[in-house]
């Protein structure tokens, strides 16, 4: 089997990577979480490693599973005008604004 792509690193994640990924995904992890998360992620990565053996030279990646054309809608205002509904489920609002801890730039 031909492997036409070069791996950057061996297919396993270390604790630092687990933390980085968790932060990218905005999921808090504790130090206690790390070992088992690392183990599980590595188990899944080992499971998918089998795909390396497939020759995908010249194969187009799937973009739409059923062949169809992208439908374009007319440029007409058909929606909006219900701010009550938009904020109805919000944890914190004022005057139809969503409120979040202050964002500093």
């Amino acid at each position: 089997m031909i492997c036409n792509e070069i791996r950057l690193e061996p297919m396993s994640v270390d604790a630092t990577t687990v933390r980085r990924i968790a932060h990218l995904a905005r999921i808090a992890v504790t130090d206690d979480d790390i070992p088992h998360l690392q183990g599980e992620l590595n188990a899944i990565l080992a499971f998918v490693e089998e795909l390396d053996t497939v020759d995908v030279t010249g194969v187009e990646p799937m973009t739409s599973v059923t062949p169809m054309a992208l439908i374009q809608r007319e440029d007409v205002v058909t929606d909006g005008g219900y701010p009550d509904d938009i904020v109805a489920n919000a944890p914190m609002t004022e005057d139809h604004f969503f409120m979040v801890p202050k964002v500093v730039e």
Partner: protein
Amino acid sequence: MTDLTDLTLTEARDGLLSKRFSATELTKAHIAAVEAARSLNAFVLETPEHALDQAAASDARIARGEAGPLEGIPLGVKDLFATKGVRTTACSKILGNFVPSYESTVTSQLWRDGAVMLGKLNNDEFAMGSSNETSAFGPVVNPWRREGSNLQLVPGGSSGGSAAAVAARLCLGATATDTGGSIRQPAAFTGTVGIKPTYGRCSRWGTVAFASSLDQAGPIAKTVRDCAVLLTSMSGHDPKDSTSANVRVPDFAAAVARGVKGLKIGIPKEYRVEGMPAEIADLWQAGQDWLKSEGATIVDITLPHTKYALPAYYIVAPAEASSNLARYDGVRYGLRVPGQNIVEMYEKTRAAGFGPEVRRRIMIGTYVLSAGYYDAYYLRAQKIRTLIKRDFETVFQAGVDAILTPATPSAAFGLAEMQTASPVEMYLNDVFTVTVNMAGLPGIAVPAGKDGQGLPLGLQLIGRPFDEETLFAAGQVIESAAGRFVPPQAWWA
């Protein structure tokens, strides 16, 4: 009137139209059954008043001779479908008490056709699971038990609530969704019929997304014909979903009695996996025999990339999920855990709101899309998807009308039995079903027999794109030959 819950959807519809009983009576019988079956944990929200209002309106329409195709039929709705004014959670803590101001396209079509909503059904959190044990509302119990055992079994997942509710006669049918097998595997585990239609057949608008390129809605019901009736209502082009197919929706029920004479049924050798239990292999053989005796030709086929479908799925699905679930951030709806700053609020909210399986899949998905890994994982998996689809196209071009496989590698397993298993072992439940999602094809699971312990087992039929009709026709042949599978006694009531 308790026997009203024993009726199939089709029988109930006939009874309503011939006025043998009213929609209100039918609904009340099911409401009572739902209340009596709370130990199964199939419903996460019961809406009896809502159901009775709808039933009264149905009775009025029936009286006026304006009955819709599903008039007065009590259904359950998987909690992944947004229901206007009715709490919708995807069985995740992160949605909290989210009450949508909108109705999903699929459910709105059911109500348009006269159906009655009994409540919202349990599922794996965000449909991520194969046993319904990842739900924030706790697991669903399968109404089936092993002969001579009181051990509680899982109903499969992610549409575990849908399958259990139909099997336990709590509703005449249920909506479900299928991303890797989430309709067909629980149907097989509960002796019910479930179909995942062709990708694009049912609108995804208003259904909580798991993996956009794989998710499809479909029904779980007691019979092949009931499934056909429900799917006819659920299907159709929706201009609000860019991936919804603009194709004609046939009257699927009309295809049920079509038979299989002259059809070519393919048997893929790659599905004869190592260590397949003899009873599964026997069931598969029985299915071939039934179809053959009704006039179908059985041919051996090969789908060479089958074994790559599951690993590729576990790249594509988590990748899409990691992005689809980014909207659950505690800003506009659902759970918020306060933090010192916005990042801390996000991280605490998402850590507390998502269960372990969802967190795991988000992390894997984030990883495979991250800088430097996209080509090696996601892009490669999507190329392999092309190869998987090509396998099927080759077979269909060679004249095969449908493909017959087992639905699952085993019968239902015990609650918590897989707790010690690794996530990957759990994923293997989808080994026969996931190829269908990867290729966007229709697949139906039909109960076909029992294992040595008296638990139902199912067979799967895979069809050409938008040819669900052949699946209903062939499914009916299996159902007619194998009979229906109903849990022996209502031990839960």
